[in-house]
């Protein structure tokens, strides 16, 4: 799969809320293949950056642009939220919903949804109301829903935050497979081990700034900044 919407370009993007700068200014280019991992402490702006890239935040300063026109770009992205958003429907219908939006017949969409549910380990739960799923299961449901349209670019905001190690391994396998199939993945995580396993390159945020970035090897073996070093080592940063 060759991406039609990348590269994504951020130029001096800055987000302000309530008169306070919460992100940026940040400039970066997202292109090619692979998994980009966003790291950084709580409140450093990971969620804000992902949302700005995806077009969920109104960017008043700076510019976010895709290679393609915005409509094509929007149709080719998916987002997994830090807190899963659960529709008041059965699990299978939640997962099928994005397909229905693009005009798939209900039966076709349901069938695909069941397969997608199976891939994240939710096969036994497809007929339950999504609301009753556990926190981790809701995250898996959200991942299945995000994958079902086979997006070119997939944003994930701490998708494994509530998962046990077995589920995490399954999810990581799914993400790696998606990456190998050509999906460009941008994902935030607090889990350094996960970052090491999945990353092709890393963005490290600190106080809303892009404090350090590089390929996995550069970032983990030749860390430049003290803050990133401390973060990787799990030091309690003063």
């Amino acid at each position, binding site marked *: 799969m060759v991406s039609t919407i990348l590269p994504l370009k951020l130029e001096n993007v800055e987000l302000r809320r309530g008169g306070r700068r919460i992100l940026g200014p940040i400039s970066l280019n997202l292109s090619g293949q692979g998994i980009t991992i966003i790291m950084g402490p709580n409140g450093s702006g990971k969620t804000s950056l992902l949302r700005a890239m*995806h077009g*969920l935040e109104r960017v008043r300063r700076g510019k976010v642009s895709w290679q393609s026109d915005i409509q094509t770009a*929007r*149709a080719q*992205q*998916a*987002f997994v*939220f830090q807190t899963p*958003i659960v*529709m*008041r*429907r059965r699990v299978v219908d939640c997962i099928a*919903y*994005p397909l229905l*939006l693009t005009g798939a017949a209900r039966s076709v969409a349901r069938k695909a949804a069941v397969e997608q549910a199976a891939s994240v380990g939710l096969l036994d739960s497809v007929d339950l*109301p999504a*609301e*009753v799923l556990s926190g981790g299961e809701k995250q898996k449901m959200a991942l299945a829903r995000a994958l079902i349209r086979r997006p070119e670019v997939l944003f994930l905001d701490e998708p494994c935050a509530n998962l046990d190690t077995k589920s995490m391994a399954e999810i990581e396998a799914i993400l790696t497979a998606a990456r190998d199939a050509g999906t460009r993945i941008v994902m935030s995580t607090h889990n350094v081990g996960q970052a090491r396993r999945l990353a092709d390159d890393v963005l490290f945020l600190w106080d809303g700034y892009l404090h350090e970035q590089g390929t996995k090897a550069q970032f983990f073996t030749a860390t430049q900044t003290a803050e990133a070093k401390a973060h990787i080592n799990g030091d309690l940063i003063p």
Partner: protein
Amino acid sequence: MNDILRGLAEAGQLVVTADADLVEITARSLQVSLGATIIASAIGLPFGAWLAVNRFRMRRTVIALLNALMGLPPVVVGLIVYVLFSRSGPLGVFGLLFTPTVMVIAQVIIITPIIASIAHQAIRELWADYHDLLISLNTTRGQRIKALLWDGRRALLTASLAGFGRAIGEVGAIMIVGGNIDHATRVLTTAIALETGKGDFALALALGFVLIALAIAVNLALHMLTRTEKDSRW
């Protein structure tokens, strides 16, 4: 107290014998108020949802206006509809005055704001939940409203039932535009007003009990139809 007991007894008798007049006006009550509820829901529910998902300059004004319209005095609505549809009025040519149709029209005007307003409240909460997801999925405005109406259908049923409750018990407007004509526009509420005026409290009370039973029956039937109470959470 005596009157009430006699009213109950008479109500029982009217129902058991399936009194022809009672059946007729009960059916008309249902026809008018259900008709008005269906039409008002078709307008009010999507409008409430639309209002919840759209940001525009006059939004607050429209919502305030909608809430104010909830308190529209039925008598005044009836009067205005009467003037509009009277022979010399702008809509007089349709010849609808003193027909069930114009009674439906008057009730639609009275209950649409109620249904729209309650729907707006419910949908606004759901929209707050769904907002990021529906934006992220690149939905069109129509798709958003559709998803919200569908997933909020339980709350919306409540909105419609509130409208129906107002309509079935309403007397001021339909009295004026319908005229309470026997075998033409008489419904339960106008019949009650008439019998009370004539001093036949037992019959009036009997009709009143039938009216209450009817309102409850419709509520239960609709809830059962949509299995609101059966599903655990929604």
